């Protein structure tokens, strides 16, 4: 299965978004939340994010979903075409769509495409 890493400034935001996505998309998906700095502050820790990537990598590729600012830059440092790719998507909605697609057995490109559909989902 494709792995997913949620990268946020805020440890709480990454963890809560992961919990919601897991609840909708299924508990089996390899999904990790990498938010906050190593000392628990607001920010991004590349070490945490790399550890999360290793944790969820089952050989089918990993999608990184950053919230904004330094999360995006940290994600870019870890990009590796065809293996570790960034989804430029709305954080919560994209995470839910990506986790659902990964749980359904989609390929790396399929998960990325599903996440990007979140830009076109209307709520009302």
């Amino acid at each position, binding site marked *: 299965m494709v792995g997913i890493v949620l990268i946020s400034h805020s440890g709480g935001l990454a963890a809560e978004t992961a919990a919601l996505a897991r*609840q*909708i*998309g299924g508990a089996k998906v390899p999904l990790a939340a990498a938010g906050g700095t190593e000392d628990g502050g607001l920010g991004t820790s590349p070490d945490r994010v790399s550890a999360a990537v290793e944790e969820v990598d089952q050989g089918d590729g990993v999608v990184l979903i950053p919230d904004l600012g330094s999360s995006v830059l940290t994600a870019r440092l870890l990009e590796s075409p065809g293996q570790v790719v960034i989804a430029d998507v709305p954080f919560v909605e994209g995470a*839910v769509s990506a986790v*659902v*697609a990964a*749980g*359904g057995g989609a390929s790396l490109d399929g998960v990325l495409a*599903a996440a990007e559909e979140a830009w076109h989902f209307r709520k*009302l």
Partner: protein
Amino acid sequence: MNTEFFAAWIEEITSAVRAGRDHLTELDAAIGDADHGTNLDRGFTAVGEALAAAPPGTPGALLVLTGTTLIRKVGGASGPLYGTAFREMGKAFGEATEISPAELSAGVDAALAGVRRLGSAAEGDKTMVDALAPAAAALSRAVRDGLKPEEALEAAATAAAEGARATVPLQARKGRASYLGPRSVGHEDPGAASTALVFGALRAAASR
């Protein structure tokens, strides 16, 4: 049908939801978050308490209080939806103390319109609308054809149950199940299943 009749209906729904709670929750586990049975059980338990605390004097007041309580207590999407359904039916009944089959049918139509307006779901979107809409249509047809009340309610209950079963092959396009896309196919929609219970309870109240 008087206030007592509608109180009996709510009691029947409450028992049916209690008995079907785990089944509804299992349906929701497949394409949702495994809480639909618990949500409705919590909601109708609260409705029972609210009705006991201040027994309403008309069918309309009873249904409006039922709806308001569901909105406040259910916690899931079905709360605002069923809440709106019962409130709209109650409002359609106005101050009347006795409701004719034709008025009941108009009330169910109002409930359906309220659910549609709130949730923007069309038939085929794999939601409670897929049970509610055929039930409303069957009831209206039965009334127009001059069927006896019990027969009319039987027709509505059957239509709701069939509508619920027909959601199995559909792909969800509304509610959180819609996030599942094609993975939502092959499961009965929990809200449609509970709507079938609601109309089964209406038939049961009539044959008490």
